[in-house]
């Protein structure tokens, strides 16, 4: 993790081979920072480091150049041990202009390294960034190490032989910077050369210029090391299992997992969606996978999206719908219809801060009650939650499996952080997943009679496609008679059917809960779900390294809960449940297992930091009774914040030349 680098300045001898480093590239949205970050990520992956990234781009499509709200940043945490979060605070900040420095500076670790392009620290740019004086000169950066030089001029000089205009020449700045970063972390340039040659195929002068800039940045590193704060670091490769790897975001992983799930069920997939941040990415991915038997349907609203998916399931495809909180709320009544008609359906909820429109681009885990309890009537529904981008792939398959095997809607919970973040992913072999092919009923199931609501040993009713000769029958949202499915309001029937629906879901087979770090009993269990996996895991690992008796349990199956979970939790003296909400999973655990689960909550729209969790764990061992759990305050060090000038929708009106895009 980023600790070692954090605790010692970068240029001290001891840090020459840190376990992990956090680097943030920040510049104007026109500077190509996401591209730089993406290529650096690739080279990092190629070097065998584990990594996690956190792209943070402005809410505007094209913000005015040089302004605070036009800053685009890309953070990467990489190391020689398993990396599960994008890191707390960066060790290195590359600031391509004053605005980038201002918006990202607060996050940088004390003692961290600032690399700044003085060519962009002009009077005009300083004004745009609301700096009264040049921070590079006024001593305000004393806390950090500063390497400031004219990257712009260096770049122009390097690409001179290619005869580009000044503007085009300056466009190569990001490659110059990338070259420097590659040198710093001892990365090969070859793959980037190949990539540039492919990217600018047919434009050899641009390919050449970019490569020259990259090489010049790399060469600069070697020269500058002789003096100044720049040091070359070597981060050892992480021990990875052999195989094919790629980087993947949560939205991609869910899309691929759904495709895989449909294939394992041997069904075409129908996906109904309506655009909403951060769920839209799944619709976008699937819209390009039609050749895999996927139909995507952009409906007129979320209700139509889920209803069309239910219609498709009724007709024999795997219906899937996806949204985030506000849209999931609209789908509630239709989920009840799918529960009542006992049709398979997967509902993906990419959670964001709420209630109402809330924080469209910020992450939160506050839809757990909505997922588990949020429907009228006794309407039980399985809920699966993904812990990371890669894990989302398997969770999507799991959701498909439960849906078709139990003839039920299933909710898959993910969140904005998982959806956008990338991590290296060992490409799985689809053949390793056990297929769960669906069989449709094609003949009467009770002598000459059809019983559309007769149940199998799992409690599931048969799936009957309209179009099948001889099996005509009617279904609907009105209470059904046992077996026949005819309308039946009688008291004993409603009792029997309610029990059958509840019993079916309670009996869904889910794997036993494991302990992902630590012992299976002891003093403290930190129980998480969803995207808090990374920080919890790191915090527990650090605490254990200090000899603290703490274990990490991460729950995928939120409903029904794993059968052994209650017993497992009772084996610990204390249970701490960190969540990015006001304590929703804690309530479910208390209710289901009568366990004294303590909440640790954070609702600032920011992910937990490892340090915050370490501190919370420490309180169970400090001998002060009653101070365990609590609430983690908003943290201004964490990006993005409006306080640091970043526009997350709260900038004053006069600074905003655009409308919000992300609602």
């Amino acid at each position, binding site marked *: 993790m980023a600790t070692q680098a954090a605790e010692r300045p970068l240029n001290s001898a001891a840090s020459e081979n840190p376990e992990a480093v956090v680097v943030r590239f920040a510049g104007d949205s026109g500077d190509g920072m996401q591209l730089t970050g993406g290529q650096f990520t690739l080279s990092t992956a190629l070097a065998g480091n584990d990594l996690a990234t956190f792209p943070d781009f402005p809410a505007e499509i094209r913000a005015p150049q040089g302004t605070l709200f036009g800053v685009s940043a890309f953070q990467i945490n990489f190391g020689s041990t398993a990396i599960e979060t994008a890191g707390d605070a960066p060790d290195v900040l590359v600031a391509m202009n004053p605005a980038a420095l201002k918006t990202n500076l607060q996050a940088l670790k004390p003692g961290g390294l600032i690399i700044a392009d003085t060519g962009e620290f002009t009077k005009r740019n300083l004004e745009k960034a609301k700096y009264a004086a040049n921070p590079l000169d006024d001593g305000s950066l004393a806390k950090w190490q500063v390497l400031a030089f004219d990257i712009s001029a260096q770049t122009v000089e390097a690409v001179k032989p290619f005869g580009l205009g000044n503007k085009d020449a300056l466009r190569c700045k990001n490659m110059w910077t990338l070259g420097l970063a590659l040198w710093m972390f001892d990365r090969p340039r070859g793959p980037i050369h190949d990539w540039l040659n492919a990217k600018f195929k047919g434009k050899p002068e641009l390919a050449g210029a970019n490569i020259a800039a990259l090489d010049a940045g790399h060469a600069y590193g070697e020269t500058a090391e002789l003096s100044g704060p720049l040091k070359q670091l070597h981060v050892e490769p992480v021990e990875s299992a052999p195989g094919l790897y790629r980087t993947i975001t949560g939205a991609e992983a869910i899309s691929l997992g759904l495709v895989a799930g449909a294939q394992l069920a041997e069904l075409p997939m129908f996906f109904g969606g309506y655009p909403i941040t951060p769920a839209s990415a799944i619709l976008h991915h699937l819209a390009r996978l039609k050749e895999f038997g996927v139909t995507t349907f952009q409906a007129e609203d979320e209700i139509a999206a889920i209803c069309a998916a239910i219609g498709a399931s009724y007709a024999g495809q795997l219906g899937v719908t996806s949204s985030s909180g506000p849209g999931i709320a609209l789908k509630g009544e239709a989920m009840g219809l799918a529960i009542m008609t006992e049709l398979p359906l997967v509902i993906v909820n990419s959670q964001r801060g709420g209630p109402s429109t809330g924080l469209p681009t910020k992450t939160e885990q506050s839809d757990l009650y909505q997922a588990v309890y949020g429907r009228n009537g006794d309407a039980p529904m399985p809920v699966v939650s993904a812990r990371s981008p890669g894990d989302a792939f398997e969770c999507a398959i799991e959701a498909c499996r439960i849906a078709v095997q139990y003839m039920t809607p299933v909710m898959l919970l993910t969140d904005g952080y998982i959806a956008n973040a990338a991590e290296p992913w060992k490409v799985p072999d689809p053949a390793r997943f056990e297929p769960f092919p669906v069989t449709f009923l094609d003949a009467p199931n009770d002598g000459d009679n059809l019983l559309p609501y007769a149940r199998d040993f799992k409690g599931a009713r048969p799936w009957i496609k*309209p179009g099948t000769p001889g099996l005509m029958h009617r279904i609907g949202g009105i209470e059904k008679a046992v077996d026949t499915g005819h309308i039946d309001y009688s008291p004993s029937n409603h009792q029997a059917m309610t029990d059958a629906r509840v019993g079916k879901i309670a009996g869904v087979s889910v794997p036993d809960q494991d302990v992902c770090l630590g012992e299976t009993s002891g003093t403290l269990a930190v129980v998480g779900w969803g995207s808090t996996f990374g920080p919890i895991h790191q915090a527990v690992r650090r605490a254990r390294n200090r000899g603290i008796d703490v274990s990490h349990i991460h729950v995928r199956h939120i409903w029904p809960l794993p059968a052994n979970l209650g017993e497992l939790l009772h084996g610990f003296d204390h249970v701490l449940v960190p969540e990015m909400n006001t304590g929703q999973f804690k309530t479910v655990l208390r209710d289901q297992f009568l366990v004294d689960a303590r909440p640790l909550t954070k609702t600032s729209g920011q992910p937990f930091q490892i340090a915050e969790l370490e501190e919370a764990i420490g309180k169970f061992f400090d001998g002060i009774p009653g101070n365990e759990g609590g609430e983690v305050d908003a943290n201004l060090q964490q990006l993005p914040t409006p306080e640091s000038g970043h526009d997350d929708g709260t900038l004053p009106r006069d600074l905003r030349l655009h409308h919000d895009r992300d609602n």
Partner: protein
Amino acid sequence: MNDMTPFATTLKDWETDQEVRWCPGCGDYAILKAVQRTLPQIGANPATTVFISGIGCSSRFPYYMESYGFHTIHGRAPAVATGVKLANPDLDIWLVTGDGDGLSIGGNHLMHVLRRNVNMQIMLFNNEIYGLTKGQYSPTSREGTKSPSTPLGSYDHPARPAAFALGAGARFVGRGFDVSKNLPEVLKAAHAHQGAAFIEIFQNCVVYNKDVFDDFAQPKGAEDRQLWLEHGQPMLFAGGTQGIALDREALRLKVVPVTDGDWQSADVIVHDVTNRSIAHMLVEMPFGPFPMALGVLYDDPRPTFEAAVAEERVKSSAGKDTNLAKLLGKGQSWTVGDNAADPVSTRPPGQGEPGAADPR
């Protein structure tokens, strides 16, 4: 509707064993019979016929049809039906909705199913009232309708279903009423139309809005108050003594007298179901000064939504590899370990590991 080989059935084959629960005398009974009479005539197959409804008295319809049926939730039947049709375009879908179901809570979905032109027959039972919830006024209730929720009479302006449908982009608009002997002909025309076919069916709610359509629907004097439209025929009513002509100055329709059957010299319009301008005037033609326009008001097919979806799939799939293992490894990837099996290029078509048994 769909091209299909005719299937031999009788009216009886379309009846279910379920007790019909509408109020005695309700217009829904007559519509049920008309539909059950129509389906054998068009050679419909019960196994590929699906009735999909929302919620309301009218939406109980599927339970009484011996075919596939889905009684969904209030207002959302068009969305469910769209999913069914996209998943299996061979199914022949009849949508049943009410004036509340289709124009109040479900107005949005009705608009979009028409605009997209999903191939199905949409029967809107217009009784100008909320029957199932015991008689509140509905979006089609006339101004001044007294109901439990409008004890002093309603004051909002009613929606006109046929005008709504045409405005939403419908390519077929028909009209009939529950006890009309012509209703099956309208249904047949709707079924023959490829695309979303909208049929407004006036329906008598004998309990909460009794006989509101009597002014044109009652047999006595019907000749004078009903204009049955037929493609290629002059718009005549009242036993051929009156007709509809275009007031060219005012650019609107007018009623003209016709003597001795000489409609030509009276300039009576010859109905053309493909003429959208005529359709617009007919759906706006106010009853009272004019007769009630019934039959097929508009019928001009256009390619359907499900055909476009299928076409796009073919186009976007052409020449593409559908190997899931390859898809998973797509993009910027790298290999760890020298002799690690490359899970992509070494994979047999069954997508298993090299040498693994073919899963199929």
